[in-house]
């Protein structure tokens, strides 16, 4: 197992190099002159434009820009954005917000999703199963932007149950955005669990467990659920990466100063250093959680071994 993990971690190095170059090239390929856009309706002085273009190596060819960037990166310098702010500061200030948001979302996803899925799955085609089917279909079909505004307006503004914006109320501020962010995945988790459970309920080993007189609860939790979780764990693991990078809408509507918003702003301003810094980090997060998922397989199903 140890060797397997080490090999996987080593593999991340070429993946991250490749990913960062790809992103770098994509930002480079964006048309237009980002320095020129800094001034807005009124242009910066020509010498200032020249100075900034020079400072950010924007006149160099793509490969040279990338080599300079990676060179700085290896010395721990993430570079600065066009406004002179350290990219590393942006990351360290905004990452905790996004991590908290993702944690809350994952918690909702796991707790509500799995409980609903199990309850639907053990009584397939029963009343609760139909309730889950209809409600998850509904949730999945509503765009997250609509969901976010509706939740903010009704639960936040009209009922006053949750704060509407910002992070001033600690974890409490993350509840509503976390729920909104989790909504889509939550529905998937519920359905995945349900299908998986319903299938396994008919499996031989469950019948055996029942036949030898185990209490119903033990049959469901220790035998069925554990064996049904593999597809769910795969989904949730991959979802962590998505939640971290894809929270742009939620972060904007609920005014959370997170990483999604930072990336969005940076792409619009063609801030190569910021985009590459953050996205490369997200790639690493994604790879890391995929590794965690793979390791978890072995825990869930002892038949799976990595040698």
């Amino acid at each position, binding site marked *: 197992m140890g060797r397997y993990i080490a090999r996987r971690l080593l593999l991340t190095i070429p993946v991250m190099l490749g990913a960062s170059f790809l992103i770098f090239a994509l930002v480079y390929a964006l048309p237009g002159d980002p320095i020129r856009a800094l001034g807005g309706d009124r242009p910066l002085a020509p010498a200032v434009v020249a100075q900034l273009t020079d400072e950010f190596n924007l006149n160099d060819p793509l490969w040279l820009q990338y080599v300079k960037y990676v060179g700085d990166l290896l010395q721990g310098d993430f570079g600065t954005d066009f406004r*002179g*702010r350290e990219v590393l500061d942006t990351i360290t200030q905004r990452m905790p917000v996004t991590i908290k948001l993702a944690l809350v979302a994952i918690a909702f996803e796991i707790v509500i999703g799995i409980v609903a899925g199990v309850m639907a799955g053990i009584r397939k085609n029963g009343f609760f199963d139909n309730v889950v089917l209809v409600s998850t279909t509904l949730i999945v079909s509503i765009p997250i932007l609509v969901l976010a505004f509706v939740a903010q307006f009704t639960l936040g503004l009209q009922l006053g149950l949750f704060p509407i914006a910002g992070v001033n109320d600690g974890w409490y501020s993350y509840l509503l955005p976390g729920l909104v962010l989790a909504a889509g995945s939550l529905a998937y988790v519920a359905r995945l669990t349900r299908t998986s459970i319903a299938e396994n309920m008919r499996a031989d080993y469950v019948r055996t467990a029942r036949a030898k007189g185990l209490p119903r609860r033990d049959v469901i939790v220790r035998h069925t659920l554990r064996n049904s979780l593999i597809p769910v764990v795969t989904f949730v693991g991959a979802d962590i990466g998505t939640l971290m990078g894809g929270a742009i809408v939620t972060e904007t509507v609920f*005014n959370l100063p997170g990483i999604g918003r930072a990336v969005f702003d940076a792409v619009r301003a063609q801030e190569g250093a910021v985009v590459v810094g953050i996205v490369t980090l997200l790639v690493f997060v994604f790879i890391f959680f995929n590794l965690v998922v793979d390791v978890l397989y072995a825990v869930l199903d002892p038949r799976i071994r990595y040698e």
Partner: protein
Amino acid sequence: MNLSKRRTALVAGGVAAAMLLSACGGSDDNGGGGGDGAAADGGTFSVYVGEPENPLIPGNTTESEGHQVISSLWTGLIEYAADGAVEYTGVAESIESEDNTTWTVELKDGWTFHDGTPVTAQSFVDAWNYTAYSPNAQGASYFFSNILGYDDLQAPTDDEGNVTGDPAAEELSGLRVIDENTFEVELASPFAQFPVTVGYNAFWPMPEAFFEDPEGFGAMPIGNGPFQAEGEFVPGQGITVTRYEDYAGEDPAVAESVDFRVYADLNTGYNDLQAGNLDVLPDLPPDALASAQDVLGDRYLEAPSSGFTYLGYPTYDERFSDPRVRQALSMGVDRQAISDAIFAGSRTPADAYVAPVVDGYREGVCEYCELDVDAANALLDEAGFDRSQPIELWFNAGAGHDAWVQAVGNQLRENLGLDYVLRGELDFAEYLPLLDEQGVTGPFRLGWSMDYPSPQNYLEPLYSTAALPPAGSNATFYSNPEFDALIQQGNSASSNEEALDFYNQAEDILLEDMPIIPMFFDLEQAGHSENVSDVVIDVFGDIDVANVTPTS
């Protein structure tokens, strides 16, 4: 091992559940009184700001969000009254000149920065030199281009725009410190409006601490204004400022402290205002304009702002080189109808080139800004305009211009029988360079908001030959020696009345030549909560935070 793993998982589940429970309990406590945060200690309120684009350094701030924050932290040489008139309530005792070229600035005693150091003539001269020096890459650098020696502070560049060396000098030769409280400014050409310009943030003083650590300073600025920074500015979140007790100005801050909160989305700010979590919203979301007056009642504010929206003509394009064509298209647009339909009446149809917020505005002076379909059609025929070719209307993407530009197109089609094509696919980063290289093929959207309240600021930077790209904002490439001469005469006029007269004459030339289609003068809307009173929109469209009074 398996068993222990599962126990951990169960414990984790329990923690998550407990967290959820406690959070739900919390909702009961907080549910009722949304606005308690603002009123608790009697003298605090919160203000919405968008993310400032730059570090909070006056010489590098050229947009409105950053301006809103730093204008609470600094006071310049002069201040502006609500009608834009110059008031000597700032640091300057007097700004005088005999020839409009060499200006002597006399400072008042007793002004200090928030770190206790005095505001001296050197504080201004150092700040101006720093901002003008091109290697410092300050956004407002060009404001000093009229001061003698500016060119020597610009680094030389080769043909491709690469910096090839250091500038010839580090200090503007036109700036001279006479004594602690006096300095002299020598301009490259006479400019009677100079005292009006120095209220702009590019001209604010900087303490010595700034030059030691410009980067750290941008997060925790030290000014001389009614408020001082209490902690660092946190991107995405904001900054809290507290009243500066040693403020030397005439109008110290009323509130104990102000919380500038950064929002990503105006709608969220508006919801937060209604929920009572936010006290001042200096701007309202467009789709709330129609209902905001009912929702907010007497907490709704509206004031004319300096914003000016126009469609520029590519005067270099043969199709638009005839002034008669330019007059005709302008007459074919019903501005009021567009304002009502698209902006819920929140834009004033432009009837001049100079906005109503400055002295020198003349109401209804633009003859060709009024809808006159017959005259417009007659003019187009007279000019032999080819109506079979569609007109291309250009605007930058993703900035909410689609609807009104399309409305302009529809009006041209209906009134003048012209087809139109919308060219709104370019982002600002592509759109602006295209304008600079004369690449557009039809009327293009641009906006302007003033830097200082003078009619000159609406004329010279937009239509003079000296302001041609890439150095200036004259994207229409309009050039008229007669206009330039009148501006120069206005700049060197001996009195304000005389200057206004020349600027009016210059505007008259534009009113005939029509290098642009003047579209709208903006109105600024704002709202506030019940926790504050005396909320006033100033001439720049900002909220004067020093005056805002917390009431509970």
